[in-house]
């Protein structure tokens, strides 16, 4: 199994090696391990994501997909291996962690909006305190992105007054206000009622069309097929397979991916 994942990861690197000599990849992970006690959440993971690339990470629950993307902005500390984000090494040094977090935006399954602040306050907090923007500038920026996710009229409301889909779109706008180069989505639609999934996916598609580098953990295979440049399939902490969506869905190479697809596509 480990040999296979090595081969596939190695192969992908080989193909993309030339252009990436000139351009620093958005994300580069080399032999990354993450343990929780005895449990190995990430087991020698290699991954390279080019700028502008859209990656969908999928796999059964407990396969390490969330851990993978949470390591990219150091919400989880990896135990071994190397992670570079836009050429900055995540070596547990404060200034590098801060630099990486400024380059990345994250959207969580449970939204994690600040419940004691209005939508607008949620959006302007980081631009004002981290980027040092004036309140007026930050508000303009926030309204720009709230308009983009189509909820400018909710700016003065509190998160608790919004539907799940609206809250998640606010969370996307809030992340965008820091002008990230890479967006990380950790199961952004899993906590939503079915009728609200679409509005969030539409927002993400729009972002993808604008050329944002995206890594998205999701079970929405329709979205993966339509938007992803590459699907990364994980199982038991390893990247088992990565391929273009068409190929992955039509012709999964590993047995594990085949059974996974059988189970989720009806």
């Amino acid at each position: 199994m480990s040999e296979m994942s090595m081969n596939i990861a190695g192969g992908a690197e080989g193909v993309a090696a030339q252009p990436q000599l000139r351009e620093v990849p958005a994300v580069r992970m080399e032999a990354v391990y993450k343990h929780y006690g005895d449990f190995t959440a990430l087991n020698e993971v290699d991954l390279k994501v080019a700028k502008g690339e859209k990656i969908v990470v999928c796999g059964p629950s407990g396969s390490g997909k969330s851990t993978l993307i949470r390591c990219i902005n150091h919400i989880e500390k990896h135990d071994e291996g190397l992670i570079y984000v836009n050429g900055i090494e995540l070596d547990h040094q404060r200034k590098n962690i801060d630099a990486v977090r400024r380059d990345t935006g994250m959207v969580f399954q449970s939204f994690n909006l600040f419940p004691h602040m209005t939508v607008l306050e949620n959006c302007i907090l980081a631009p004002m305190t981290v980027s040092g923007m004036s309140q007026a500038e930050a508000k303009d920026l926030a309204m720009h992105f709230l308009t983009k996710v189509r909820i400018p009229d909710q700016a003065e409301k509190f998160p608790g007054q919004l539907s799940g889909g609206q809250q998640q779109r606010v969370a996307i706008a809030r992340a965008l206000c820091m002008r990230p180069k890479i967006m990380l989505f950790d199961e952004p639609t899993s906590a939503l009622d079915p009728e609200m999934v679409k509005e969030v996916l539409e927002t993400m598609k729009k972002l993808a069309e604008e050329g944002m580098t995206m890594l998205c953990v999701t079970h929405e295979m329709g979205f993966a097929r339509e938007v992803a440049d590459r699907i990364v399939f994980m199982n038991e902490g390893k990247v088992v397979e990565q391929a273009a969506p068409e190929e992955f869905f039509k012709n999964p190479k590993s047995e594990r991916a085949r059974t996974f697809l059988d189970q989720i596509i009806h």
Partner: protein
Amino acid sequence: MSHFSPTAAVNYFFNYFLMKGVLVTIGLTVAAVIGGLILGMGIALMRMSSNPVLSGFSRFYIWFFRGTPLLIQLVVIYSGLPQLGIKFSVITCALVGLILNEAAYLAEIVRSGFMAVSAGQREAAWALSLSPWTTFRRVTLPQAFRLMIPPLGNSINSLLKATSLASVISVEELMRRSDMLMQEHFQILEVYAAATAYYLILTSVWDAVQRRLEKHFGRSSAAKSRRVAASAPVAQTSVEARA
């Protein structure tokens, strides 16, 4: 003198000497709350620290001050410490004792408040690259504080009455001055009726303040959010219907 005299009680209530005692009681309470909150916050942060020395010390502190009577603590500070050459004024002794004691209780309240703020809130703050200070001041503290208000209110109510223990080390607060009046005139019921009325007024005022605080910090409360979130599908359809 053989029966209760309401007039005497009313007179004691408006007695200037007693009123000054009330001011001392209020002063002791306010100072102990402020001092206790600052120290308690520090103790709570130490308790939550991953450093075993800090969390161990804080655990010991809380165990010690919650496990011994305030009365002993006050007496030891007032008459015990001078034996070791440490001498404070009476009022300082009372304040040191009340603050040290109150901090132990408040530390646990502060800690429970912070623990109740979900990890996702901190993660969201990190992901937005907020500094630890901004995360604390703008994200976790306001949410923790809202959760702290009810137990905080309780603790402050107890503290207000616990200041009466300072009378033992001769701080002339409400209780002590009541005793002094009582010993002068032997109108036990009348004097204590006035003192009781003052304590009730003070605790009632605090109750009202607490209710206002709860209302103010609860205006976007998580409890309300949860309720709305639970009925989100309904809310959504009504929004759509209007649109």
